[in-house]
């Protein structure tokens, strides 16, 4: 199917000088301006960009499904020489599904929860006259099995909630490709899925589109993924195309400064730890890693069981986890959703009571702290949560958010607290003008900085970071990780870093613990995990980092 740049061949999709405007309460927003791109038949092209770059908007304009308030303000979109801008909704509806298929981002919300999977596939086939009442069941099963759903007869009779995220995404792919469209738009098709599932889904998608000769427009925020899966990459930033070209060229020789910073920041293709020197120190003590090591936290045989109502067997969220956090170091827990990593973190934060096992902080069992010790513990262990949109009270100003811990523990007098808040703001590189702002006025990265400043207010010794960067864009991720690294050096902090993303973990951790289904499958130094993984599950996780095999790393 590959792209033979053939001058005679007409592109399947041609977008030229596209502009999309959104009418909002604050006036017209130019979401997309002057976008040109071409897709040849059978070719895979990826649009890469951060949130707000206009990548999804461009794709939605192509399929004629702009969100309310949006309209194509200029330019043209032609499919096979036929102009799509300005045609009626009726005509567009005939093209949608039949000529242009779509695989949406979120498999949880894009299937009708009260209709069977088979019915939903059948709907598409019947709507485009590609099946009749007689043979629709047969064709549905064919479509589902082509999308790699095991046991398609049974799956067709199931409801979406009975399927895992990966299977649901396969069902959506089946729907998207049911009519054998010439072009498939895949909008972040795997962002909502666990890494190991991501890879199989993308492989499936690639295989199917190759067989059908379908061209793919892949929308993603992950440059590594784009480079691995697409022949050509289009980089968008603030509604404009800043660079486009063959995937390898974009990765190896980016021209535009924005692309360069994106390539540099992409964790999936970046090299190693942000602070290599920490490795060196650690090397020396490697030999004697017994009691001599100064551990700030020691967790032993930790277990958490949730009884399930109406079921004899309880749900084991965390099973016999033991680990230690050396002072001043970063220990990461990596795992997919449901692996028990967040539960472990919350037990360490004393938010959840363990069912069994002990957690010792500075040698004291945290379950047996008296009132005064508990107060002390709370001040020395602080969290940074995943979602900066919900971890800051929206009713508080930034100043009040950062000052709250200081006020609660009556640190210093009013003037000293004011000064402390300002120092903290400097520490996280936010301007003083932010003090009277509210969280809703800040971007995701700025909010996460505020959350970090708040966590640091009481000068804690241990910070528990629960997926602190997974809600952020790549460039912002990079900045926050650098900030966390700098702060660790400056204040000698110890981190417990929870993440599902091995690529991110590689940038920040000294030690890595891999969790699966509540249990620890492997724990070793970061170097060890990444260069010499022992457990097969760890290897699978490593292999599913997009762009890993491109060899751009080192």
């Amino acid at each position, binding site marked *: 199917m590959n792209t033979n740049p053939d001058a005679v061949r007409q592109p399947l999709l041609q977008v030229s000088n596209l502009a999309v405007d*959104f009418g*909002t*309460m*604050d006036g017209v927003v130019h*979401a997309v301006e002057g976008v040109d791109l071409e897709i040849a038949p059978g070719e895979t092209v990826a649009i890469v960009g*951060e*949130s*707000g*770059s*206009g990548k*999804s*908007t461009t*794709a939605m304009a192509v399929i004629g499904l702009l*969100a309310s*308030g*949006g309209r194509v303000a200029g330019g043209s979109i032609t499919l096979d020489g036929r102009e799509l801008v300005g045609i009626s909704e009726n005509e567009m509806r005939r093209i949608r599904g039949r000529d242009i298929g779509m695989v*949406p*981002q*979120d498999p949880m919300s894009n299937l009708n929860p009260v209709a069977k999977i088979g019915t939903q596939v059948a709907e598409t086939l019947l709507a485009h006259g590609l099946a009749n009442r007689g043979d629709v069941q047969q064709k549905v099963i064919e479509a589902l099995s082509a999308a790699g759903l095991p046991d398609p007869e049974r799956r067709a009779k199931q409801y979406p909630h009975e399927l895992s995220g990966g299977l649901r995404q396969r069902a959506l792919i089946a729907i998207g490709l049911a009519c054998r469209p010439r072009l498939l738009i895949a*909008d972040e098709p795997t962002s909502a899925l666990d890494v190991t599932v991501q890879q199989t889904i993308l492989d499936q998608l690639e295989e199917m589109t190759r067989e059908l000769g379908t061209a793919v427009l892949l929308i993603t925020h992950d440059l590594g993924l784009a480079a691995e899966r697409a022949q050509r990459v289009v980089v968008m*930033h*603030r*509604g404009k195309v800043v660079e486009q070209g063959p995937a390898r060229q974009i990765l190896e020789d980016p021209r535009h400064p*924005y692309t360069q910073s994106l390539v540099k920041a992409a964790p999936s293709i970046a090299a190693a730890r942000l602070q290599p020197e920490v490795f060196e120190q650690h090397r020396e003590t490697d030999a004697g890693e017994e009691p001599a090591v100064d551990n700030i936290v020691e967790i032993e045989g930790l277990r958490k069981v949730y009884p399930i109502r109406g079921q004899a067997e309880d749900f084991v969220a965390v099973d016999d986890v033991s680990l230690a956090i050396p002072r001043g170091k970063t220990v990461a827990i990596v795992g997919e959703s449901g692996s028990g990593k967040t539960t472990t973190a*919350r037990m360490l*934060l*004393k*938010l959840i009571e363990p069912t069994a096992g002990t957690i010792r902080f500075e040698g004291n069992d945290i379950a047996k702290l008296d009132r005064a010790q*508990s*107060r002390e513990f*709370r001040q020395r*262990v*602080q969290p940074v949560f995943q979602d900066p949109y*919900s*971890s*800051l*009270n*929206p*009713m508080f*100003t930034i100043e009040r958010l950062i000052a709250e*811990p200081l006020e*609660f523990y009556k640190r210093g007098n009013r003037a000293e607290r004011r000064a402390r808040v300002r120092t903290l703001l400097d520490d996280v*590189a*936010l*301007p003083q003008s932010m003090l009277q*702002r*509210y969280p*809703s*006025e*800040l*971007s*995701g*990265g*700025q909010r996460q*900085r505020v*959350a970090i400043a708040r966590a640091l207010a009481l000068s804690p010794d241990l910070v528990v970071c629960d997926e602190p960067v997974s809600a952020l*864009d790549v*460039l*912002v991720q990079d*900045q926050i990780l650098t900030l966390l690294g700098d702060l660790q050096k400056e204040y000698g902090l110890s981190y417990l870093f929870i993440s599902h993303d091995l690529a991110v973990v590689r940038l920040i951790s000294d030690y890595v613990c891999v969790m699966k289904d509540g249990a620890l499958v492997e724990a070793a130094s970061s170097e060890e995990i990444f260069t010499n993984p022992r457990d097969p599950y760890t290897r699978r996780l490593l292999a599913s980092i997009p762009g890993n095999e491109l060899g751009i790393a080192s």
Partner: protein
Amino acid sequence: MSAVLPPAQGGEVLDTVAVGQADLRSGGGFWNDVFRRLRRNPAAWIGAVIVLIFLLVAALAPLIAPYPETALPGTKYITPTSIPGIGEVDGFPHGLDRFGGDVLSKLIWGAQASLLVGVVSTALGLVGGMLLGLLAGTFGGWVDTLIMRIVDIILSVPNLLLAVSIAAILGQTPSAVMIAIGASQVPIFARLLRASMLQQRSAEYVLSAQTLGLGRGRITMSHVLPNAIGPVIVQGTLTLATAVIDAAALSFLGLGGGRPETAEWGRMLTYAQNELAIAPQLAFLPGICIAVTALGFTLFGEALREAMDPRTRAR
């Protein structure tokens, strides 16, 4: 998600060293934002204007009403077979009622009575409901179960029936009407606040407050409640409308007590039904007043709900 939302405005994109003062979004805190959105909604303006006129008329009744509240200045124009209608007698622009009272004056004084009933009964319902909701939402467990079952029981009795029973027990007085309407609103507010608090409790900023060691009371009062109160305020505005209607209904049924000449929209309707054949305007005029006032509060309440809704607020 990103598939259906227009791109975020402002500084989401590249917060290089995070110093993006320029790309901060406009507006201040939550309430500033709500107010800004409210101002742009024509429905909010219409509602606000109606409510404002209603409030002014009620407050200034002693000044603008031509006659005192219970005066019967036009008795000499009334005969058993005819009641002068709109503009038929000089000095009584809206005509007279069966007893010779000036209809315009009665309507104006009626606004005051309705406002009083509306505000007092809604306040009763709000305070009672919020107290229950707060207890249930804060303590959870069996406290929650107990309170919510009681609320369910109250809710299963039709509003008007409940109000009638309470009015029947407490006697036919205006304060009984207020207590009755207030009591029938308690379950709505209790449920709403509880649900809203439960939703807020799962937000990460509550976890963050817990890891700080804040007590349950403090977390509830300074973190959860201010964030959970929005829907309750909206419901309060909407409930003012139903309270005005309920008050009219209860007076219409004769539960409001007082003398026949008392100025009260619901009571005016009660007496109007006997004269419907000869003086239909006696029913229309207070009816229109009730409908427009209720419409004003409803429009404003709905606009407020829209302005506070996080789903529409994101844009």
